[in-house]
């Protein structure tokens, strides 16, 4: 059993949204998981940054792989472009999940010691959990 936990990268158009979701996920999961917020452009505007995502993947990887959650449309394109250059640097899974709920569910599963597939699955199952 691996001693390291899966890392999480949150890719949002908004730096504040990525940072806030990372803070929430850390608080709910007990603070043991590496969560990197990759939000906004390099200039600090609304948008996504390939450089921030690439840096986030490297910083999040503690040896057990990384799960990436994008928020909207072009965040997915940015992540996919970065992943094309990331081949061979450790397992990275892109999760198709609601941003906030997925971030919380993924981080809790990572904190419990889940592997990269279990963490991505937890994020994607968030789509089916009703709030009301």
């Amino acid at each position, binding site marked *: 059993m691996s001693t390291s936990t899966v890392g999480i990268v949150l890719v949002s158009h908004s730096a504040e949204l990525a940072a806030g979701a990372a803070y*929430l996920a850390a*608080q*709910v*999961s*007990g603070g043991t998981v590496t969560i990197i917020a990759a939000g906004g452009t390099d200039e600090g505007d609304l948008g996504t940054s390939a450089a921030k995502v690439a840096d986030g993947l490297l910083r999040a990887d503690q040896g057990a792989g990384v799960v990436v959650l994008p928020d909207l449309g072009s965040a997915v394109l940015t992540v996919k472009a970065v992943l094309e250059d990331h081949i061979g640097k450790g397992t990275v899974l892109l999760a198709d999940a609601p941003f906030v*709920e997925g971030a*919380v*569910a993924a981080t*809790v*599963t990572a*904190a*419990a*010691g*889940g592997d990269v597939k279990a963490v991505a699955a*937890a994020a994607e*199952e*968030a789509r089916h*959990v*009703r*709030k009301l």
Partner: protein
Amino acid sequence: MSASYEQRITLAGDLHARPAGALAVAAGRFAAVISVSAGDHTADAKSVLGVMGLGATSGQHLTVKASGTDAREAVAALIAILSEATKVGG
């Protein structure tokens, strides 16, 4: 050797996000299948969103059920978390 255990607890506080997270993190470390029930609603204890979705509040009775090789330890651990974590809220 597989076995089933269950235990009830009366919540001392609301089951907010952080206690729900602590519960799901602990549950995820056990091999047993574990559920948490409040009234008519039952959630997978390993699903933080499911546990939060119970909307369990102070004074409510919760039942933790587990089946599997480490079911006894799982129920004991989760009951301990529920009794501690709901005191501080969050």
